[in-house]
């Protein structure tokens, strides 16, 4: 959820995705039929850095009321609805 896969003490808050971004990543992946693999890097003493814990809590708090649309679901015929404008070419090549 930060810049590095593991714990990197040089990371600052700017390197971290916000809770909203991570939640959106989860939604985006699930809407395309996938699972989100999210790395958190424990510190050297095994503790989970508070900033990472907070992000996980934020995703969890969103899932409490909205998990019905995430758990046990599968991809629909279309994963996304785009607004007016040019639809970017995504690496998954779906619209």
């Amino acid at each position, binding site marked *: 959820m930060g810049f590095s896969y593991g714990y990197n003490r040089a990371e600052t808050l700017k390197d971290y995705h916000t809770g909203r971004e991570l939640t959106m990543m989860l939604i*985006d992946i699930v809407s395309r039929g996938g699972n989100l693999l999210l790395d958190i890097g424990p510190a050297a003493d095994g503790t989970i850095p508070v900033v990472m814990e907070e992000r996980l809590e934020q995703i969890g708090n969103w899932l409490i*009321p909205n998990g019905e649309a995430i758990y046990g*679901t599968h*991809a*629909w015929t279309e*994963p*996304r609805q785009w*607004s007016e404008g*040019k639809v970017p070419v995504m690496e998954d090549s779906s619209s």
Partner: protein
Amino acid sequence: MSEYDIKKMIDTPPAGYARVDAFFTAKANTVYAILPRWPGSQATLRKIPRARRRTCDASRNGRISQMGTQRAEYRRHDTPSQRRPRGLRPQGRDLARMVLIQSLPLAILLCIVTMLGWGSWANTQKLAGKEKWPFELFYWDYAIGVFLFSLIFAATLGTLGSDGPNVFQNHRAGGTRLHLAPPCSAE
């Protein structure tokens, strides 16, 4: 744009590009539309079949709002007129803050000043003169002096800065237990 950047997809698309208005998931006979932003009074969902639908608003931690059945001719439905959550407001008046050193040279300089503090007991005792000033009185003078200095620092470096909590907030965070802790009973 072939990279995967969720921010560009939902919030800040490059000029001329579209952004995601809704994500869809499905389960049994239900299609879920998850909206990244609160859509206002109405949300238009294209290409949705007649089915029981629910929409989750991802723009906040709201409950799942039960949507009415779709009016096929319009392909849109009304969102419930819920009040938006109030933004976080600073509690009370914005109090003064403490001085936090941001530059490295100044921090090192203050470290050296701290070392003067190490020797303050021995040096001031030497200055007072062991013969002229009794130890007991020096002890009291030193303790009261340190306490007064702490008050001075609290009123200056602790409140005249621009960052972090001020001295009063720090005291509150410490709680009263810390100040009024009873002596531990030795067992």
